[in-house]
């Protein structure tokens, strides 16, 4: 070889360029994600005391975990009620947003207007504003003769009678009542999900629907045999996003407890709570991804 060999091979050059582009993320991840995560993990087994000019940690083993699981009566209850709420709220949010995305994906009069309104929660999604709105709406419902129970508005006293007369079991009725009472909060959570689903729907090639129309398929068959299987990856992303969204929500009791502990400077306990919660959610996300990938293999 006469030509002077470059310092890096072609492949090496490509790797170097790629790493240059990703470098900000590496530094950022190291400084702002990994370090805090490891520090939090260390805090869970320490007694953290904030002092002037720094903070002090002394090793106390699993005392923090012992406290939150065995002494604190609220934590386990909050943890499981948060997860339990999530189990039905996440599917409802996903189903509602896929239906709404499907609707604004079709052409009809006033579509632009409806689309603009459906994206409003994305814009106004501030925790505080939503809290103020809820407070205000609760107050107004009380003024106007609505029934307020435990900070939640119950519009649905009529619905209960109808369901009772239809001969449904009390568990089923309870479910429907909770569902309809929570509708306001749930609809306000669908913003980003609709956006993501809409992007997914737009990416399905129209030729598939043309072919199925020629074969004489109905809209239902279209939805279940084309749209759903094609949307499977988007559904997975959206499910994960929604779970995380509920997890970090400021109305979430378990998260609230962590925040209160932080405000009281009980950093070790807060770290133990946050970490237990994170592990539980991690398991949930892993399970959901496993089930969904199995499903998409079966139908995809």
């Amino acid at each position, binding site marked *: 070889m006469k030509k002077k060999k470059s310092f890096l091979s072609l492949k090496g050059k490509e790797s170097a360029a790629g790493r240059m582009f990703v470098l900000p993320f590496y530094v950022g991840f190291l400084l702002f994600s990994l370090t805090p995560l490891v520090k939090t993990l260390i805090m869970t087994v320490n007694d953290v005391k904030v002092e002037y000019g720094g903070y002090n940690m002394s090793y106390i083993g699993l005392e923090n975990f012992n406290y939150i699981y065995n002494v604190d009566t609220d934590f386990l209850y909050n943890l499981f009620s948060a997860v339990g709420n999530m189990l039905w709220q996440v599917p409802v949010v996903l189903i509602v947003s896929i239906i709404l995305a499907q609707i604004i994906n079709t052409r009809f009069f006033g579509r632009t207007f409806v689309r603009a309104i459906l994206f409003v929660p994305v814009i106004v999604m501030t925790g505080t504003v939503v809290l103020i709105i809820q407070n205000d709406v609760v107050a107004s419902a009380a003024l106007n003769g609505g029934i307020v129970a435990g900070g939640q508005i119950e519009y649905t006293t009529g619905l209960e009678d109808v369901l009772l007369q239809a001969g449904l079991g009390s568990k089923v009725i309870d479910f429907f009542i909770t569902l309809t009472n929570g509708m306001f909060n749930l609809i306000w959570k669908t913003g980003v999900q609709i956006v993501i689903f809409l*992007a997914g729907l737009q990416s399905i090639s129209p030729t598939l629907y043309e072919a199925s129309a020629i074969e004489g398929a109905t809209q239902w068959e279209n939805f279940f045999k084309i749209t759903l299987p094609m949307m499977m990856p988007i559904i997975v992303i959206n499910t994960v996003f929604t779970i995380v969204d509920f997890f970090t929500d400021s109305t979430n009791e378990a998260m609230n407890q962590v925040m209160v502990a932080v405000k009281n400077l009980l950093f070790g306990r807060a770290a133990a709570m946050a970490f237990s919660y994170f592990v539980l959610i991690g398991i949930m996300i892993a399970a959901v991804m496993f089930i969904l990938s199995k499903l998409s293999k079966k139908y995809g």
Partner: protein
Amino acid sequence: MAKPAKSEALYRSEKAAIKLAGGLFRLMLVVGVCYLLIFPLLYLIVSAVQEPESMKDATVVWVPKVLSTQSFANAISELNYGKSFLFSLFLSAAATLLTLISCSAVGYGFARFQFAEKKIAFFLVILLIIVPPQTTMMSTYLNFRFFDIGGILAALGIGPINMIDSPVTILLPAMLASGIRAGLSIFIFRQFFLGQPKELEEAAKIDGCGVFGTYAKIMMPLSAPAIITVSVFTFVWYWNDSFYSEMFFTGELKPLAAGLASLREAFLADVTNSNFTAQEQRGILAAASLLCVIPPLILYGIVQRKFAESIERTGIVG
């Protein structure tokens, strides 16, 4: 005997009926959902513009009897609106710009180059989306309260610096692709770049353009949909964020979202003793919420059409 085939006319009228029923169902659903979404905003507007005293009046339901700017005036002074508005605008705009630059570069790196640890690195991006900020909030706070880069500052004798109340707490993570929901931004950019044809970049390479030149001069001008999607989202997330801003800004000058959050907490803690009656407090909170929400709503109104189109063309599916 075979069933007689449906006559053409019957078939058509049946189809028309189904279409009508579908249209009606859609109309009901859309009107219902839009009502749920608009109702609170209307309610905020009504509470903000009416005279606080008339909230007690049961005859006033939707249309205010006496208009008053009192709630707005109080909210503006309570929030220190002029200053905190500009501060919020500066923080959100700067953070959005930095996020755009860093996340697009990282997304480009993931979409176009091969390197050994790419899969693991991308897994870390997903982890960035999944790990909620609350899990690490104590250490993040302490990180900035006693800010030091790997002990370098301490070794230089400057010691850890207190970064609380400084815009650095918001802008530095944004610059390093670790800002609010940065994982999602990286993901959107990566998916967008993956969907673009490679021919243009190859042509640029043959013409002697380096990788950074290709990224800055060829790819970025072509990625308007991804840029619009990410900027609108990021701007709004930063503008609305009260979690980080409440944690990092404890002094006089606060971003709007933090100001609103502390105003609400102050009123909650002090319903009776404060300078305002309960009705006045509600009016002020409604007005303050509107003052916080209106700037992003105006921005959204301006870019609405472009934003919706961009989302549809971002190709998150890849």
